[in-house]
């Protein structure tokens, strides 16, 4: 009658976790390269699923499809994941709050407003839409910043968070108005689809549009990664250790937000990656951002690629990336909440 229980240590998941904890970068780097390469062969041509390398060698259409459509899209999805995860790590460190994500401070809602405005008022081409989304994302940040500067309440971080909430609410009200005014047959679906997030129709032009900002920002953030630890301490302590907490936080914040604004303007609103991936990364590497930030970037890239692969492969029609990211993000989050070895503090 008795059933032998499997040893808890013996399952594949726990073995993988142990290996990840020992050599996170080797495994994450390997996984990143494999997923990136595999993503080029996943899709719905010639039939749903996997395209064999032989097809690529023989079929001219396949080659053009991979080079002109899939490659820029795959690279963009990868950059999206890397950027959101990096920006999330940075913001969680400098706001000293593990629940912060890159879209707050008015960035996401500002970008949404800019995109909706360009759809309704300008009937815009993708590049103009991206430009306007970027402009309004930065405007959202700028407004949050100015409001926080002028507010007479609480500490700097609390004021920034409150200002971000207020500015986001303003822009989302604006998006509401634009949706109300939109032509329900032509414009409204565009707005809704954009706000669900996705990489369809991403071309080399889109990739080149976001590349300079994203690369520059990521390099700054990456080089300052150990310093992020210092910026997560109390201001007086950071000061006593020779940092200029205010100035240095502003620098990495601007870098993180600029990169976020660039990817959001192309991909629409994709949640959860920036909030969740840094947490998962910290579990593998510990809290030290010298290791946690690169791990977070690699994991974010993998997550972005996998979500986008599924988004364009699962159904004949495209599934918005934002929906999949939220779905998997929430599942991962629930898994983390239920896992036994979670460390609780405060």
């Amino acid at each position, binding site marked *: 009658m008795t059933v032998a229980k499997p040893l808890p240590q013996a399952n594949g998941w726990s073995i993988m976790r142990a290996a990840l904890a020992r050599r996170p970068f080797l495994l994450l780097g390997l996984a990143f390269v494999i997923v990136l390469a595999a993503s080029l062969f996943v899709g719905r041509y010639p039939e749903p699923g996997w395209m064999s390398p032989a097809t690529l060698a023989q079929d001219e259409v396949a080659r053009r499809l991979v080079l002109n459509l899939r490659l820029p899209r795959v690279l963009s999805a990868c950059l999206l994941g890397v950027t959101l995860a990096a920006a999330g790590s940075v913001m969680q*460190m400098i706001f*000293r*709050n*593990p629940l912060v994500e890159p879209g707050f401070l008015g960035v996401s809602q500002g970008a949404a407003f800019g995109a909706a405005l360009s759809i309704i008022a300008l009937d815009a081409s993708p590049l103009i839409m991206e430009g306007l989304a970027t402009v309004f994302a930065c405007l959202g940040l700028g407004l949050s910043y100015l409001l926080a500067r002028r507010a007479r309440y609480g500490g700097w971080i609390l004021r920034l968070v409150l200002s971000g909430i207020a500015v986001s609410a303003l822009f989302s009200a604006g998006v509401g108005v634009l949706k109300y005014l939109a032509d329900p047959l032509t414009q409204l679906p565009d707005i809704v689809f954009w706000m669900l997030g996705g990489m369809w129709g991403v071309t080399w032009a889109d990739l080149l549009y976001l590349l300079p900002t994203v690369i520059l920002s990521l390099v700054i953030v990456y*080089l*300052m990664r*150990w*310093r992020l*630890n*210092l910026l*997560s*301490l*109390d*201001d*007086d*302590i950071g*000061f*006593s*250790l*020779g*940092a*200029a907490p205010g100035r*240095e936080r502003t620098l990495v914040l601007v870098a993180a937000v600029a990169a976020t604004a660039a990817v959001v303007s192309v991909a629409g609103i994709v949640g959860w990656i920036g909030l969740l991936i840094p947490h998962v990364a*910290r579990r593998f590497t*510990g*809290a*030290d951002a*010298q290791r946690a930030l690169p791990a977070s970037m690699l994991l974010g890239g993998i997550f972005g690629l996998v979500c986008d692969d599924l988004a364009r492969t699962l159904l004949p029609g495209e599934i918005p990336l934002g929906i999949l990211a939220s779905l998997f993000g929430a599942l991962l989050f629930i898994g983390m909440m239920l896992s036994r070895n979670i*460390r609780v*503090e405060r």
Partner: protein
Amino acid sequence: MREAGSENLGNRGTGAILAVSGLTFSYDGPGHAVLRDLSLEVPTGAVTAILGPNGSGKTTLLRLLLGVLHPAAGQIRLAGRPLASYSRRERSQLLGLVPQDEHIPFDFSVLEYVLLGRAPYLGPLQMPGEADRQAALVALHTVGLEALQGRALPSLSGGERQLATVARALAQQPHVLLLDEPTAHLDLSNQGRLLTILRHLATQGTTLVLTTHDPNLAAAVAGFAVLMRSGQVLVAGPTETTLTAEKLSATYDAPVRVFQVDGRRLILLS
């Protein structure tokens, strides 16, 4: 622990490494001064305790000495030079801080956290190297936390966390260590542990400035005491002449008696 360059910081034991003159400070403009025309000398290589009732301006004075607050009037000199004339880097190599409470939102390991004390010796884009690791381990050894270097900070007891904070400040190899209420959250045995470490540091030549509202702590560890009240220094000088019943009663506005027990000073409310 000491690096080259300490020789030119005045004669140990004789000069004042920190000299404050005519210091005035307020958080909300003149009329609400927290410190008024305060003058003070902190002797080099000794333990100086700043005592006073709650709200007397002890922590504010400490933050001014650190340089994070700027006085409305008056001057602070560190090793003979105006504090404001130091670069961030120079200043952070000389002055360390152990705060009363520290909120650390992420669970760094003890060693990762102590390594942050090496920041004054690293450029903004630099990562700590092997020499920094060694300095951090020396600091951990000094406070006796070597064995816990791999543990996550939140998993430490309150006393161990406070010692980790001290180790982080020691990894900085400061000439002057500022401590704000260092024993506030510690039980008796951890207080004893910390006091032993502080005495040891003082014998090694580090100047210690600590605030406390506990005169017994001051009597136990400090050679010099500064009694503050309402943003001004009432008395300052060697502990023996400063921590008297009369002067303490005036400072705390409460009847205080001082006993001698086994050659040590015991201060009680009467």
